């Protein structure tokens, strides 16, 4: 993966469904740049962020895991 630099980091660690997705939507709407980095501890967010991106048309650039933390890079459409 080519290195992308995030314009904003959204930390949803400690939150569970549906809060990470609700916060993600808010963050993307308010994002002035292009790329959002999202951190989550909810394992359900792996499937949910992917589904959310497919539905809303924003691009999920990458989805990875760092220990117990899930890291997503999303590009605003």
């Amino acid at each position: 993966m080519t290195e992308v630099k995030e314009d904003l980091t959204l930390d949803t660690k400690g939150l569970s469904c549906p809060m990470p997705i609700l916060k993600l939507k808010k963050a993307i709407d308010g994002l002035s740049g292009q790329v959002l980095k999202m951190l989550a501890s909810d394992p359900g967010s792996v499937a949910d962020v992917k589904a959310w991106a497919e539905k809303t048309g924003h691009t999920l650039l990458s989805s990875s895991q760092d220990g117990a933390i899930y890291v997503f890079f999303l590009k605003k459409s």
Partner: protein
Amino acid sequence: MTERKNRLAIIASKGTLDMAYPPLILATTAVAMEMEAGIFFTFYGLNIIRKDRKNKLFVAPIGNPAMPMPMPNILGMLPGMTSMGTMIMKGMMKKANAPSINELLEICRESGVRMIGCQMTMDAFGLKKEALIDGIEVGGAATFLAYAAEASVSLFI
């Protein structure tokens, strides 16, 4: 051509703590997924949006073999068991960092989830619009159906 938003239409008919979560979680998430969402609160579902009840939703161990601590009905009928079951569930939700019913209602209101109180059941229960939280409109079966007819997802909860 302007694309119409997908729409989620839910009937919330139950007033227990466990059954209050799914309509609110799904409606708020639908809006976050750029869908429209509406909830029609009817019968005991009205408790979810009653000012005096929304913070006092219970889950009862009696007749409920799915409780985390399954309890024989003969014990479930003892005074205090419903409060205990409710406390256990609230504790579990808190531990899972799930939002409270109040928080979800607030997000519904902020994000424009359409919330409709069922006129007929409100009349039957002697409930005035003032007894419900702010931002609720009142309507009947036709109001819900007119909304649901244009929905791609309809759920009865």
